[in-house]
């Protein structure tokens, strides 16, 4: 009996939270227990309506995401892993063998599949082949300049995909293209940039490409429905931040603690390195309730 009531309270609460039932309909469905579970469910509903906290501010979510990505890269561990990951295919015998086999497959019957995958979009069955072929191109690249050029090209491809998905109304798949864009931009930021500014993979070249990307994203933003705008805005912020990173690398500054939409923090006046959250330093001490 006791276990039955535990289960009933839990089931009713779940159904109410899922919007499948109301408190009253739950009680009507279980009249024999209504007297016991009614007050319990009412206090739960009362607690939720009075004490349930709101979600995080969107600008906090965006800024923190950027700071976290920067911090993770800055930690060196991930940055090193990312670089090793990029090079691993050509350095380790196992990966070299896999690459060789893939090249053989591509030269044979696989060529058609890879060609067909070139026009695929996130959500398509051949999209994985397209991404794999990009990784192979990176694996067989032998210079940072070529890496940079390839990655900038892949970022552009993600943008083209995003535009096509918008045109097709496939907003559910849009996030994947934009996440791919973010990853590619992160990878660009880990590269050792070529010193020669006339090279295709140079900072100036990448900066120009990124600025073009931002204008494309702004164009896409105008075309998508409200529910897809947040993902585009995040991508714009990511691209803008990457552009700032490139500019700062060009000027020999250190970019990692600067989040989109934020002033670069002054290390001399902040007790929390890496937490440049743009808040007013002159505001009174924070206060809170003890738990």
């Amino acid at each position, binding site marked *: 009996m006791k276990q039955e009531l535990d289960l009933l309270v839990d089931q009713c609460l779940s159904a109410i939270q899922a919007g499948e039932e109301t408190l009253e309909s739950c009680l009507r469905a279980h009249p024999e227990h209504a007297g016991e579970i009614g007050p319990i469910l009412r206090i739960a509903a009362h607690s939720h309506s009075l*004490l349930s906290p709101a979600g995080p501010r969107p600008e906090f979510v965006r800024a923190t995401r950027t700071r976290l*990505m920067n911090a993770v890269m800055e930690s060196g561990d991930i940055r090193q892993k990312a670089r090793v990951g990029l090079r691993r295919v050509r350095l380790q015998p196992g990966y070299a063998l896999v690459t060789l086999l893939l090249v053989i497959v591509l030269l044979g019957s696989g060529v058609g599949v890879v060609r067909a995958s070139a026009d695929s979009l996130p959500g398509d069955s051949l999209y994985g082949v397209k991404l794999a072929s990009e990784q192979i191109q990176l694996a067989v690249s032998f210079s940072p300049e070529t890496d940079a050029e390839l990655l900038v090209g892949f970022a552009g491809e993600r943008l083209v995909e995003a535009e096509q998905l918008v045109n097709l109304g496939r907003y559910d798949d849009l996030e994947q293209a934009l996440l791919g864009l973010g990853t590619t931009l992160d990878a660009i930021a880990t590269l050792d940039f070529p010193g020669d500014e006339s090279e295709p993979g140079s900072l100036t070249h990448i900066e120009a490409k990124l600025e073009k990307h931002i204008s494309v994203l702004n164009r896409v933003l105008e075309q998508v429905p409200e529910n897809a705008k947040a993902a585009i805005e995040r991508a714009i912020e990511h691209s803008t931040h990457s552009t700032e990173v490139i500019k700062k690398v060009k000027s020999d500054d250190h970019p990692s603690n600067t989040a989109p939409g934020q002033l670069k923090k002054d290390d001399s006046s902040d007790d929390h390195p890496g937490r440049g959250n743009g808040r007013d330093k002159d505001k009174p001490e924070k206060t809170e309730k003890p738990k």
Partner: protein
Amino acid sequence: MIEDVKLKLADAQLIKRAKRGDHQAFGVLYERYIDAIFRYVRCRVVDIQTAEDITEAVFLRSFEAIGKYREKGLRYSAYLYQVARNLLIDHYRRGDDIVPIENAEHQLVSSQSTDGEIIFREQSASLRSALDRLPEEYQEIIRVRVLLELSTTEAAEWMKRSEGATRVLLHRALKALKREVEEGHEAGA
């Protein structure tokens, strides 16, 4: 159940990718759990900026330690929750930044109209006070299962209990809260 299994697999795969240095995997994990973790911290910390700082620290610590993370078939949120709890314990231990509960409640109702605000503030303060008088595990199950609306399965994972034990705990906690609210009203009458 199938959806739950998929979710677990997806977390495990993302963690594998994150360990290999895939930034996108970190981003997906962050997007997936930022809302639940922030709201949990916010349940326990009234000041929004402090809650944001602690939430950010939760993800930063977790991501930096991802190489040591051992997959146990649970959602990654259960691990994030443990990190959040540890950070909150550290935070309370420092014992600084105390605000009277009236001011704390005031922060929660800034969007209410004046009359509604007063009623809302009084009711919230009374209910929060009743909640605070409950044993810690009762408070916790009410936070995660009622305020955050986690499923029984996820709440059980967070609290390291079986689903059956979680249901029992929830029922007892809500009964105790109801009793506290009634006794609070009687004492105030």
